[in-house]
């Protein structure tokens, strides 16, 4: 994995600190070109991995890049699925069955075809595979070395004890997409324990890691124990700036205290901030 990875919250009006800031960002990134400009700036700073949700607009971004293969040949994506609000709104409007009908390609009520057969047999794992394929469609032709499951689904499945779904997701990502599976979570220690228990080896786990303990469920101390341990997992740190509550210098000083952290995910939109943050991260780890 690249050590420094650009996230997508700033493009899609996601700001966990301030609704007002997120509205301002929504206006700034109304046009796809605005997003592409930031990605090009990131590339100019030596950042070649973009971790993004499967928001519909990403399809426009990948379409643009698909037309310019030489220019973007080194650019990588870390897709994060599913885009929770798309499905949450669909479930509210259509119910669960209606949502499956709307988003699983093929006709789940037809007796032929993967979708119909899976639905009839209550083969949820095949239905999951179909949903994963639907989410991945926009990344065809792109490099996707790691594919993540979003935290709402990860933590929901964890809480419900649906172990088999995790194992199957991990295997499917490896088998079908020749990629590493990743898990985003608000509960890192629990996920590490679970992966160990289920035999998901050396998993990539992306979670909030920051100086003020924002969204580090359980306690900062517990997170630090895991990060300082020999446990076999590959941590990625996100929300290092605690959604803007921390200044970059002190934020990255904290995160880079843990050599076990393989990658740092951050969001920024100006070239100066991107460069500054990247430098802070790399310099911190080099200490």
């Amino acid at each position, binding site marked *: 994995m690249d050590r420094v990875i650009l996230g997508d919250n700033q493009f*899609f*009006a*996601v*700001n*966990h*600190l*301030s*609704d*007002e800031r*997120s509205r301002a960002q929504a206006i700034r990134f109304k046009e796809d070109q605005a997003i592409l400009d930031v990605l090009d700036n990131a590339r100019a700073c030596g950042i070649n991995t973009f971790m993004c949700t499967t928001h519909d607009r990403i399809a426009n971004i990948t379409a643009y890049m698909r037309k310019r293969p030489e220019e973007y040949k080194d650019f990588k994506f870390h897709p994060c699925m599913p885009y929770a*609000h798309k499905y*949450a*709104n669909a*479930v*509210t*409007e*259509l*119910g*669960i*069955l209606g949502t*499956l009908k709307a988003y699983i390609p093929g006709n789940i009520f037809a007796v032929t075809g993967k979708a119909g057969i899976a639905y009839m047999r*209550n083969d*949820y794992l095949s239905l999951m595979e179909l949903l994963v394929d639907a989410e991945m469609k926009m990344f065809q032709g792109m490099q996707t070395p790691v594919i993540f499951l979003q935290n*709402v689904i990860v*933590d*929901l*499945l*964890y*809480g*419900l*004890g*649906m*172990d*088999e*779904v995790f194992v199957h997701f991990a295997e499917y990502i490896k088998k079908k997409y020749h990629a590493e599976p990743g898990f985003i979570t*608000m*509960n890192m220690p*629990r996920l590490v324990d679970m992966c160990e228990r289920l035999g998901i080896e050396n998993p990539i786990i992306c979670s909030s890691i920051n100086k*003020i*303990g*924002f*969204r*580090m*469920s*359980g*306690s900062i101390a517990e997170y630090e124990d895991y990060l300082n341990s020999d446990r076999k997992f590959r941590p990625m740190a996100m929300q290092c700036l*605690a*959604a803007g*509550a921390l200044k970059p210098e002190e934020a990255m000083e904290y995160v880079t205290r843990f050599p076990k952290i393989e990658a740092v995910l951050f969001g920024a939109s100006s070239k100066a901030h991107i460069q500054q943050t990247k430098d802070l991260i790399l310099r911190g780890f080099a200490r």
Partner: protein
Amino acid sequence: MIKAAIIGLGKMGMSHAAILGGLPEVEMAAMCDTDSLLQNAFKKFTRIQCFTDYKKMIEEVKPDCVYVVTPTKLHYEMVMFAMEHGCHVFCEKPLALTVEEGESLVAKAREKGLVNQVGYHNRYIGTFNEMKRLLAEGVIGRPFHFMGEAYGPVVLKTKGGTWRSDKKNGGGCLEDYAAHVLNLINYVMESDIVDCAGVHMPSIFSGEVEDAVYGSLYMANGLKGQISVNWSDDTVRKMTTSLKIEGAAGKLEADATTLKIYVKEDRPEFGLEKGWNFKYITELTPLVDFNLRGEEYTAESAAFINGILTGRVDTRNSFEKSLQTDRIIQKMKEASL
């Protein structure tokens, strides 16, 4: 260990089930839903017992507590049945379809000495709690006006077809969305809304129910304010609830992430400077044991479970307090133009 059972596995039901599954003192023992797709998924992938008949579930499983997470119309019979069988109950909001039903539930809970709670999760959000505290301590002086709002992209088409678009089931913006704001106002202002005026509840896309709620609200302590709620608003990504309070010495504005405090003079005893001060959710939220889509959801369940375990009950969302929201909902229905 507290044995828990859930009736209703929609979005909220699954969220509660997962959170309970993540709490170490709880055994997530059984669920009840009529949807066969979910039933089969749960049977296949979890150790949770599955039922389609809630009475059978309660009688066989004998849970310590039951979560009622079904359309509002079904709350009364399910909560009553659970309590009659000695179960503590967590009921999603609003408590019941009518005030009369709510009053019976309050009485039964008191009679049986059971822990009872309603899912008004905003009362567990750090920014709103800090706003409540600062208001009570007089930071903005005597309040003279408030404005409670909530906007979200729930109903954006004329389609309908779920319980939320059905008046008989408790659908509509007032019961589903505005209830949160009314309840939050009662909490933060430390009084109850007792009357309303100029209530206007238009349908925008829905056929049968209202999609927005606008009006003036009068509180028992004499304070007056406004409400503006619209669930057909696609300018926001998700439900955005906020409260503004104006006082003689300043202003308080809060949403789920940010608390803005305006004071006309330096207030060093509160750590506030003259002008605007900002406090963010990052510094106002205590950590929880297990976080699924928001600390406040875990915090409300942790409080409920803790009340059962220790007898130290957090009554901020009791049936009795929640009933006050049902009372003003009923008044607004009667008053609507």
